[in-house]
């Protein structure tokens, strides 16, 4: 198990289940931006979260599976989002940047997510599939 992004207790949870298809990504972006807006994130932070979620979904879709769950957990100190994938588990780490092409783009997305969010972790699930867990801290 990875370290949780935050040890704060979860107060509210918003879950969204979408088909693992590109045309549903914007639904998730909208829902997540509404959640982030409710938690008083700034416009810039909301855009960051949307972009990170969209990247997570695109890379998730590339790995197959029929559906993706997006679980937004409101914490006292920020927003934790799990993108739960039911396809082939992620192998995020080593890629050769000198040969970036379409197939590498989804792995590059992981670097982008790391740049946009405060913490990013992977949880492999015993039931199959994996969670990409990302956390965005609220400004103090």
């Amino acid at each position, binding site marked *: 198990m990875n370290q949780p992004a935050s040890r704060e207790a979860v107060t509210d949870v918003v879950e969204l289940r979408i088909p693992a298809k590109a045309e549903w990504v*914007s639904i998730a972006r909208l829902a997540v931006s509404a959640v982030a807006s409710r938690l008083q994130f700034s416009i810039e932070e909301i855009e960051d979260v949307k972009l990170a979620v969209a990247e997570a979904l695109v890379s998730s879709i590339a790995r197959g599976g029929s559906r993706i769950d997006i679980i937004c957990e409101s914490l006292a100190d920020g927003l934790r989002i799990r993108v739960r994938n039911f396809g082939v588990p992620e192998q995020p780490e080593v890629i050769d*940047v000198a040969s970036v092409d379409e197939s590498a783009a989804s792995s590059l997305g992981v670097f982008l997510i790391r740049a946009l969010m405060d913490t990013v972790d992977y949880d492999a699930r015993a039931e199959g599939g994996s969670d990409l867990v990302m956390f965005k801290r609220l400004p103090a």
Partner: protein
Amino acid sequence: MLFASFSKARQRHDAAPDRQDPAYERERNELVVAHLNLVRFLALKFANRGEPLDDLVQVGTVGLLKAIDRFELDRGVEFTTYATPTIVGEIKRYFRDKGWAVKVPRRLQELNLAVNRASEKLAVQLGRSPTVVELSQDLGAGEEEILEAQELGQAYNLLSLDSEISSDGDRRSQTLADTVGMTDSGLETLEDRANLERAFAVLSGRERVIIYLRFFESISQTEIAQRLNVSQMHVSRLQAKALDKLRAVLKE
């Protein structure tokens, strides 16, 4: 890995920064070229925020140069891992310098108003409430943008003129519009109550109810809409029509 030999060249360069060092320059350039794809990839992700892609690639490249000059090989992280936040940081700073975080809420607010105007216009044209796709075509904005403007536009302290402001238990609820002053009602100028009563005869039952509630009971359009179980827009149209009728009759 390109970096192993570059880091030697960079040490040499750092030791004597003023000396011409073509080998160092060449290796640095190679590194930049090798990672331009990364810059382009990242810049593209920010391309929907209203700044030209070329500008984003340019500031992203500045970030790349910073990353190349600061990267330490022995830190044990991939260069991409190190460079991405630096490049993204540079791109985000560019938006910040452009006042983007101020412009976006304003744009959403404006779009929110435009959506309201366009949906009234389209409702009249189509004889039904328009879809988001139709609104998006009419306004030349993306569907997601329109939905967001509707949602977030309200979050940025846009108060409807019909929002209630008195909560002192008074049975007559006051709205923001009431405090603005009624310039359009035309009813204040009427002195002859008998005339008005006669004029009311030309109104349909529903129009009469709306005029009564709106101007004699000072109830908001929104609240009237709820009572009559119709849309606020519908109330607004009926009210306008009723007032026109009254004016026409009273002029005679």
